[in-house]
């Protein structure tokens, strides 16, 4: 048999590769058999796709945490643990989120999975953790869509722990904002036909009943609607505007409302006004729009890891990235605080020990107090964090065109008020 030169060289390459692989395997083996104990954290983030704005703060926080843990190994039960963080991109897709969660569990062998940003991402991640018995800590999704997945009862979860607020908190904040301005107690509801719009339109009328405001809901519109004349003509005469639209739809609505002469006295808008970039893109007409604030640099909280105050964390984000601070920043940081605290309390990286530690963990983080098992009104795996209400105000020659200032702190009196609600002009 005669072998061609290419086959021979191919075989040679394969042999060489196998030898090299054997070598590196040997080196790797020595490394892991050393005295160093390691905590491996898997982070399902959203770096690309429609939810990428949520992920922008994540990558900053991951870099910050890698640097922090490199200098300060985590002390667990007298042993210094190296902390390794593996980040995977869910590409803003639920299916992909489940896939990368499985990869992190099975291929990377992480001890804890963390994830931040919308039910679309954190729910599938938590499901994979339940299936594989891996502790899972998630945030930045209202607790209802996290807990209630099928039917109307909260799911029975053993390995997932979530911290954030719920619809009842946003409703209370919005009611407070409405009552600070004298109105005719009529609100127009701009609700899209998506999970958020369905949940808000179904629950807000009941949750805001005490404010005496009646909500006029003309029906759930489809995301991507380019004309809102019908809603605008129906809302005329309502002094309050309420809604949870996606940013481009709100821009379309708000510009058309101005064109067609609808000007409510107060507008509380979720989702569309979350990120400063969306507010800037609205331009001058964004001045005075209100939204819920779940994290702000002026809050008197500080990190249990780095000791930074909320303001210092926001400042370092701004100087590092050149972007204005965003609300998910504090929560991404808090994910690592909670994970570190849970592992320290558990005394090991064993899944069941960590889960047991999480079940009654109480830790002061840069987003406020996170305590599980403390609130009988929510499932035991949910910890509620404080929410306030804020108004976007145009700045006079500041660093950024708009600032989000706190105007309602009923639910979190420790967060200082920057003023009263100013009616829309």
């Amino acid at each position, binding site marked *: 048999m005669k072998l061609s030169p290419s086959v021979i060289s191919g075989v040679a390459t394969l042999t060489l590769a196998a030898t090299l692989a054997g070598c590196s395997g040997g080196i790797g083996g020595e490394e892991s058999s050393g005295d160093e104990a390691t905590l491996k954290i898997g982070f399902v983030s959203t770096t690309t796709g429609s939810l990428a704005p949520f992920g922008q703060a994540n990558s900053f926080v991951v870099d910050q945490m890698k640097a922090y843990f490199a200098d300060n190994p985590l002390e667990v039960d007298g042993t210094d643990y190296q902390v390794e963080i593996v980040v995977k991109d869910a590409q803003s897709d639920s299916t992909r989120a489940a896939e990368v969660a499985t990869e992190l569990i099975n291929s990377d062998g992480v001890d804890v999975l963390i994830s931040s940003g919308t039910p679309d991402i954190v729910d599938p991640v938590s499901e994979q953790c339940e299936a594989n018995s891996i502790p899972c800590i998630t945030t930045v999704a209202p607790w209802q869509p996290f807990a209630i997945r099928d039917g109307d009862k909260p799911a029975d979860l053993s390995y997932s722990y979530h911290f954030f607020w719920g619809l009842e908190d946003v409703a209370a904040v919005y009611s407070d904002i409405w009552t600070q301005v004298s109105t005719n107690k009529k609100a127009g509801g701009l609700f899209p036909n998506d999970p958020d719009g369905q949940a808000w339109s179904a629950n807000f009328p009941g949750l805001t009943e005490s404010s005496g405001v009646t909500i006029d809901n003309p029906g759930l519109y489809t995301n991507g609607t380019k004309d809102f004349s*019908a809603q605008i003509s129906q809302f005329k005469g309502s002094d309050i505007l309420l809604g949870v639209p996606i940013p481009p739809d709100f821009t379309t609505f708000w*510009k058309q409302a101005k064109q067609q002469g609808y000007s409510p006295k107060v507008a509380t808008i979720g989702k569309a006004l979350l990120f400063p970039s*969306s507010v*800037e893109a609205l331009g001058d007409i964004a001045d005075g729009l209100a939204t819920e604030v779940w994290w702000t640099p002026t809050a008197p909280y500080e990190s249990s890891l780095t000791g930074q105050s909320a303001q210092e964390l926001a400042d370092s984000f701004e100087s590092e990235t050149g972007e204005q601070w965003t609300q998910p920043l504090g929560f991404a940081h808090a994910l690592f605080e909670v994970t570190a605290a849970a592992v320290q309390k558990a005394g090991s990286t064993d899944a069941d020990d960590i889960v047991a530690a999480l079940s009654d963990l109480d830790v002061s983080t840069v987003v406020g107090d996170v305590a599980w098992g403390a609130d009988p009104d929510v499932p035991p795996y949910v910890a509620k964090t404080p929410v306030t209400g804020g108004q976007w105000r145009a700045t006079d020659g500041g660093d950024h065109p708009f600032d989000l200032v706190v105007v309602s702190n009923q639910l979190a009196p420790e967060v200082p008020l920057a003023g009263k609600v100013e009616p829309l002009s």
Partner: protein
Amino acid sequence: MTWVNAVVQGLLLGGQYALLACGLSLVFGVMRIVNLAHGALAVTAAYLTLWLSQRTSLPLVVCLVASVLVFAGVGYLLQRGLLNRALRGGELAPLLVTFGLAVIVVNLLQEIATANSRSISIGGLATSSTRIVDGLSIGVFSLLTLVVAVALIGLIQLFLSRTAVGRAMRATSDDPGAARLMGIDDRHMYGLATAIAVGSVAAAGAFLGMSTQFTPGYGDLVLIFAFEAVIIGGLGSLWGTLLGGLVLGVAQTVGAQVEPAYGILFGHVVFLAVLALKPSGLMPRTVTA
């Protein structure tokens, strides 16, 4: 008056759809290519216009024209370098190529321009309007979009029917083989057609960027309306596309007036009805054929 208002707002909305759809219609009319990268190209053009207006002190109109010219060039190169080759691979190949192109473009944009929302600022023009009567106001910018759409479609139509190059383009569309025998370079004709189409996409993208805020993936959200406008109007007919855009716009606003939840749905229903009852569209191709 609310119904009159719904129809008027629908016509204005239709202008935006028609402006978006005319490039799609032209590419299909001449080359039978369904360009799935249409939405992504429109958003890219919006970014380019925004970038130009931020980096230079030129008036927005100049930036818009510059962006249209750049995109016309891109369109020509795209056709000669990529789509002409894909056309040789059968009907499915160009479809897949444009799909792949859309994915690449969206991710590149995300890498370069980040996922932050952007908008092209047009100051007071965005919210200024003329009140016709009580309960009926016409947005100045919406009206401008409609006028630009009609003018652009009229110009392209005039070009196709009255100029030598336009005639050669139509001949190539009818029968590339016969046109080649007459000495027409069909690859060049295809290139020119895509150049015009992508140039018009750039104008549409810039207007889109002025009317709302966009992110790299925003193109997908509007692509479906452009497709529906083309189908309702009749494949390959530019005036048909204008009519299709207007019909779609009015269907959506009148539908929303009946029940705000059903606005977009009414548009889809009209689209399906046209497909079922008159599959060739309201104005089957006349001149471009």
